[in-house]
């Protein structure tokens, strides 16, 4: 592999890693702060992708589709938290697993009723279509740079939100000691609903942004969900920083594995996870 190929594969890794981070961040926030094991997280990603498909057809404008889609997804997150999830914070993990596993089936069925079972393609907006030539034979698609850009902006925003704002402080306080935070006047119920909606929003944005390069198809949340859990386990449960590092690691191993060891590619990520767990059983950045 020459240097130019290496560089482009590195870009591919980072782009995939950042997308995984968007998903894993929501998953790890919801688990770390509310203690809910959310198997339906992949369904939020799928929902985002299908929303992106419908909205980009309706608006014919990427910015509008992204904006409206994010609002819809966040509203959906609030509604779902209020209707279902808040009743499960105090139940044990098995109940939560059953609830969210059931939700996967419900979302799949709804998806089938609303959008059908075909595979849909989403066009890349004309402005971002095309690729940048990096060497005489290799080029990099502009849309993928755009994807990475969006993910980076959101990652930075998330970091600022959690570590620098008043809301972030309350979120951290609630995660650290719920009762103490509550007695100090923090509205924990509202915090939980916000964090949950934020997680749903992150997953849906990831789905919307990924739709043009990954297609939109039934059950698309399943494989992504497994990767998210791998990222969360490697990074350390509840740690957003851990999720970022782990997602980039998984992106690297997956991309270079596909290219250098194609026959073992689907295994390598799990071997990485096993290795990390042997070395640090709680993940890289357990809080």
């Amino acid at each position, binding site marked *: 592999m020459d240097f130019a190929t290496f560089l482009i594969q590195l870009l591919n890794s980072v782009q995939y890693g950042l997308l995984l981070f968007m998903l894993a961040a929501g998953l790890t926030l919801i688990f770390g702060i509310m203690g809910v094991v959310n198997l339906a997280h992949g369904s939020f990603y799928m929902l985002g992708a299908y929303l992106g498909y419908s909205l980009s057809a309706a608006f014919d404008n990427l910015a509008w589709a992204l904006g409206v889609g994010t609002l819809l997804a966040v509203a959906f997150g609030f509604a779902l938290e209020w209707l279902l999830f808040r009743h499960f914070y105090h139940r044990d993990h098995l109940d939560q697993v059953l609830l969210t596993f059931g939700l996967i089936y419900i979302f799949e069925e709804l998806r089938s009723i609303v959008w059908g*079972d075909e595979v849909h393609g989403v066009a890349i907006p004309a402005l971002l279509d095309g*690729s940048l030539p990096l060497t005489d*034979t290799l080029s990099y698609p502009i849309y993928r740079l755009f994807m990475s850009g969006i993910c980076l902006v959101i990652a930075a925003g998330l970091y600022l939100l959690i570590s620098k704002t008043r809301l972030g402080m309350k979120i951290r306080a609630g995660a650290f000691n719920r009762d103490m935070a509550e007695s100090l006047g923090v509205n924990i119920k509202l915090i939980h609903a916000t964090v949950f909606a934020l997680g749903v929003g992150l997953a849906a944005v990831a789905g919307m942004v990924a739709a043009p390069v990954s297609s939109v*198809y039934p059950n698309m949340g399943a494989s992504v969900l497994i990767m998210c859990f791998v990222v969360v386990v490697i990074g350390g449960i509840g740690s957003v920083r851990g999720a970022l590092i782990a997602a980039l690691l998984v992106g690297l191993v997956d991309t270079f594995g*596909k290219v250098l060891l*194609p026959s073992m590619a*689907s295994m390598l990520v799990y071997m990485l996870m096993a290795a990390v767990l042997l070395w640090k059983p709680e993940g890289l950045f357990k809080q």
Partner: protein
Amino acid sequence: MTTRRLVLSRSAALVGAASSGLILPSMVRAQSGKVRVGFMLPYTGTYAQLGVAIENGVRMAIDQQGGKLGGREIEWFKVDDESEPSKGVENASKLVQRDKVDVLIGTVHSGVQMGIQKVARDTGVLNLIPNAGVLAATRSLCAPNVFRASYTNSQPTLALGKAMMDRGHKKAVWISWKYAAGDEALEGFKQSYTAAGGTIVKELGLPFPNVEFQALLTEIAALKPDAVACFFAGGGAAKFIKDYAAAGLKGKIPLYGSGFLTEGILDAAGPAAEGIVTTMHYADSLDTPRNKQFRLEYAKAFRSQPDVYAVQGYDTGLLLIQGANAVKGDMSAKPALYKALEGAVIDSPRGKWTMSKFHNPVQDIYLRQVENKENKVIGVAAKALADSGAGCRMG
């Protein structure tokens, strides 16, 4: 005490024997005046259209012959297999045990076919496969009562290697999903390409049905092979073709594939698909009187255009007619029935084909090129191509 135990154990044995299909089907068959034909096909889900096309084809073939099999009326049964391998055995058993079918026609999904295969081998029911290309069905798990009217997964690509060498591509990269159908397609390609003197410089794979091709396309661009050969199908195929063009490879490195790459997705793939060369046992545009007549009649009967799956269903019907006629509708005359099926010559819209001794079609494989959103036939890649049947022991 002993007698009660005896009665209990005997009736248990009887129920066991009946449920494994040794007794019940033959008892009921003797009483029925009609030939019982069961469809086990996907009628919902991703493959629903394929199931419908196959059933249409079978019915059309039989209707053209007066709607009877060997002079006997037909009673039809249907089970939706949902393309769900875990329900394969259960669904096939429903047709065999509950409906007592004389012949089970199914199915599309290779995983589900493995379930049917088990039931067919256990009960001896006649099984005609109208699509599933899984190698084991006519190789290691072949059976005297299982016949395929479609193809094996390695059959189209078994003709691809030589065609690519003939066009001067000496070094190729192979890319497909890492799952049974992809691996089996690779087997055919590897065999024919290396035999013709070509070198596969790299085999790239990604998990089914993953469509993140970017890293692999970058790798192909860096490897600069003479050509790329692949196996993809359905939505993933359209995506691959588009990504291949978006990565700037179209026009630089020619793309070849098993024919399923360009079946049913040419509208979705658009201009990115122009010029792709594939090999397959059928093409819509096959310029023969037989094919034109078939297409016209199918379009009239079902108000839709037939595809390769309709043809395979049609051929399954023709095969069944030949078998039933040879035994004058007495489907229990198994040795004579199987002999007739083994000796069948099918005058198909895809061209005449015969049955191999491993119960898989010996057929022409066409070379096709995409031109104006159509798979245009540009030649015959292999005449009367058979599958090796490696490991098959009919017993």
